[in-house]
């Protein structure tokens, strides 16, 4: 009698198991990790086909592609985790080009010894984020590095999307006179991660703003406002992103400090730690630059969306050959809002 049961393998012990080198070696263990953890969570026919790549239906229109790596520490924080962050991050990068995100890929670098239960939590979170956003994860990869050579898990996602006809958004299109809009409060994500990491336990918990912004972008495009630039102020915060745009467009900016929304708890935490919220990362906010005449209409559209109800016009584009981002302070003086020097907060996304 043949005692070999066909295709038998002991199931993954997700509750107590840990990542082993064999999970990235291309053999049975890796196949089991994919079949037992990734495939059921991400569940879509492109992934289920089990090929080296996803064969996707034909699309019409200009394509946008973007990629984003995530190394956040700690992996779990108030309002999200590395999983949801990695989905939102790439969706937002695609959406900032004015594109409807269609598909994502996800690549994992796992550290030997990482608990499978934590990995499952992360993968489930990615799955929920992708499903909520309506953007499936259609292909991926898993590698394992020896214990001590990684930090739990690093995730790289890539995304493709298609841009509506007639829409062209780019960082080089800002023109003097244009209005600068911001979709909500700044610094929430960075301070949520930092307070978790440093065990700061502020009375009012600060929650990350990580969110997929393509729905908001959709309504903004629908509004018909003449949009020139969309960008999400992630690492380096509002200040870095505005400086990037100013340089790309060859313009200056004049901001009003009193118009920039900051949550009280974030402001206090920043003050306490000697940080400037202008430089703290966001993961669910966007900057929009549009023709000044259309700003009231765009602002109204944004405020009607749940992810931008605190949107505000924070300044305007000015002609300036130095490309300075300047700000009128609450006190009534003027200052430059400069590029960040060095790093304010490492490992934030």
């Amino acid at each position, binding site marked *: 009698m043949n005692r070999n049961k066909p295709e038998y393998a002991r199931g993954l012990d997700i509750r107590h198991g840990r990542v082993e080198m064999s999970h990235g070696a291309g053999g049975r263990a890796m196949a089991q990790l994919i079949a037992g953890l990734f495939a059921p969570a991400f569940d879509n026919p492109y992934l289920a086909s089990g090929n080296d790549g996803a064969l996707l239906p034909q699309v019409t229109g200009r394509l946008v592609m973007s990629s984003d790596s995530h190394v956040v520490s700690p992996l779990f924080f108030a309002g999200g985790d590395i999983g949801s962050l990695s989905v939102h991050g790439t969706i937002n990068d695609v959406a900032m080009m004015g594109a409807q995100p269609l598909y994502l890929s996800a690549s994992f670098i796992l550290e030997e010894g990482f608990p499978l239960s934590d990995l499952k939590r992360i993968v489930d979170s990615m799955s929920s984020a992708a499903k909520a956003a309506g953007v499936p994860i259609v292909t991926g990869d898993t590698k394992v590095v020896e214990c001590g050579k990684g930090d739990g898990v690093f995730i790289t996602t890539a995304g493709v999307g298609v841009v509506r006809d007639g829409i062209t958004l780019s960082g080089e299109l800002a023109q003097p006179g244009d209005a600068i809009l911001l979709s909500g409060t700044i610094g929430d994500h960075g301070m949520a991660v930092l307070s978790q990491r440093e065990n700061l336990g502020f009375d009012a918990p600060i929650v990350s703003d990580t969110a997929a912004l393509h729905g908001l972008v959709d309504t903004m495009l629908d509004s018909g406002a003449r949009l020139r630039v969309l960008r999400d102020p992630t690492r380096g915060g509002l200040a870095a992103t505005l400086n990037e745009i100013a340089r790309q467009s060859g313009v200056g900016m004049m901001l009003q400090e009193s118009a920039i929304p900051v949550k009280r708890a974030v*402001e206090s935490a920043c*003050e306490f730690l000697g940080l400037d919220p202008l430089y703290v990362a966001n993961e669910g906010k966007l900057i929009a630059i549009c023709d000044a005449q259309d700003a009231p209409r765009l602002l109204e559209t944004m405020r009607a969306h749940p992810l931008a109800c605190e949107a505000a016009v924070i300044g305007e584009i000015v002609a300036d050959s130095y490309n*300075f981002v300047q700000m009128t302070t*609450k*006190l*009534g*003086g003027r200052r*430059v809002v*400069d590029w960040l*020097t060095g790093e304010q907060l490492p490992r934030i996304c």
Partner: protein
Amino acid sequence: MKYVDEFRDGALARNIAAHIALEATAPSGYRLMEFCGGHTHAISRYGIADLLPPNVRMIHGPGCPVCVLPIGRVDQAICLAREQGVILCTYADTLRVPCSDSLTLMRAKADGADVRMVYSTQDALNISRDNPGREVVFFAIGFETTTPPTAVAVRQARTAGLHNFSILCNHVLTPAAMHAILATGSKVALDGFVGPAHVSTVIGSQPYEPFARDYGKPVVIAGFEPLDVMQAILMLVRQVNAGRAEVENEFTRAVSRTGNLKAQALVDECFELRDAFEWRGLGTLPHSALQLRPEFAGFDAELKFGIGYVAVADHKACECAAILRGEKHPRECRIFGTACTPASPVGSCMVSSEGACAAHYTYGRFREAAQ
């Protein structure tokens, strides 16, 4: 934020500004030195210069602990990390100060030296506890504000028998620097000082009395919030107008005449005056810095590792020295904003956010562009 927003209020600022404009009528103008880097930073960050009339001029002083540290002192720290194999613990700002051989502590770290950024002396003590087989040196810098925490750490290390812990002591004294600025031969004509905020919480307002009495210079101790600074400027203008030279205290919510006696006792228990100490910009000043007392010699990294101090000249084009003495404005330095920027500083004043050059570059360089 309670106790913060009140001191950043735009309407109040305009009100004080109006009083300053109305009262600052002396034809010779008002040259006021803000001693502290914290004030320099506040003035630049909040754009206070825009609220002052042109005849009230703020001159940046030497009160930035990273800026006054001469190259030779950072060289000592790098030597400890690279050649003695110690874990060198330092506050973040010091990491980027350029020193000999185009090195910084950050470059030494990238090169393999074990340099760690800490937020407090307690972090450094914890590193000593966690690494009993390694020597751990805390790069102790700063004025009177950061000295008491260093004293606490040294006492704790002695109590806990942490013999792998020591400090590279570079604590300096504010009044000594003010004396140097006012000493005969100084090229700066000053009408008064915005006196230190945090330093004064420790030493009190009393140590400034000789400057008012002997040099005839008004001193107004001010907090680091923008309205503190503006109120202090108004108080200085009023003293100058009335021909008074007194020590006044705007920062009464934190500073008393005698200061923090407990902190002073702690510092006195652990430290004694050095005979002399070299400052960047101010030269070698007698009795201007501290060293550990003989009973704490085991925690003195200079003695423990036998590293002597070698003075090193600043970069030839760098004007940090004149800027620290208040003789020059950052824009008068040839390499300001060209060879020397916050991303690749040549001199120490471009490193710390409290440095006059870094503050002016980061917040105020549109002013030159507009000229």
